[in-house]
């Protein structure tokens, strides 16, 4: 059991990888906690969007075991 963290676009390039697996948290964690655990040396870039299980969430949203947490820059499709 674990939490999957995924990155896209410029954020993926900045970090140099697209995915990190984090161990099951031992206490209640939020999306921003997940970022800090996965990237202890890097403050989350401003404008970063977050999704949990493919739904947009605030950085304060709670994360539970088996969630997929995504971080990405503003979208530019169409």
């Amino acid at each position, binding site marked *: 059991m674990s939490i999957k963290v*995924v990155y*896209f676009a410029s954020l993926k*390039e900045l970090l140099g990888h697209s995915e990190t697996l984090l161990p099951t948290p031992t206490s209640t964690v939020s999306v921003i906690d997940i970022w800090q655990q996965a990237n202890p040396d890097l403050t989350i870039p401003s404008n970063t969007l977050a999704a949990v299980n493919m739904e947009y969430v605030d950085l304060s949203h709670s994360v539970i075991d088996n969630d997929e947490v995504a971080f*990405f820059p503003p*979208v*530019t*499709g*169409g």
Partner: protein
Amino acid sequence: MIKITANAFNPYTEIQQHQAQQSGLQGKFGATSLFIGTMRDFNEGQTVQSMTLEHYPKMTENQLGKIVSEAQQQWALLDSLIIHRIGKVSPDDSLVLVAVWSSHRGDAFDASRFIMEALKSRVPFWKKEQLANNQQQWVAKNTDGYQHS
């Protein structure tokens, strides 16, 4: 119908094929509103040679599905077709098609624009431009679709 494709597509062929398969539309649709986004060979003063479109698989489809549901709740739509390109694209390639069928034109105009603006702001696609000088850059933000150019 929602389609994400890594292959070049002709929006006019796709619309006609889709429409021919929807037998429930026959005789019922008075209005079709379409928007087609096409790759330009310049952006903010720079020459763009090609572009790569990345997306978040599954979240893309989920978000587009929600947007279509929201449109269906707000307007009387008979059908819709959304196609979005991913991968490497060249100038004059179609990037996105939004097509809406309804009985009356107000619904078709309103819904196609709503879907397009929602797609631009909420659906996880990202564009990276390959410039003439061999530099690459991520497109930082989308323009406002309700403002005059």
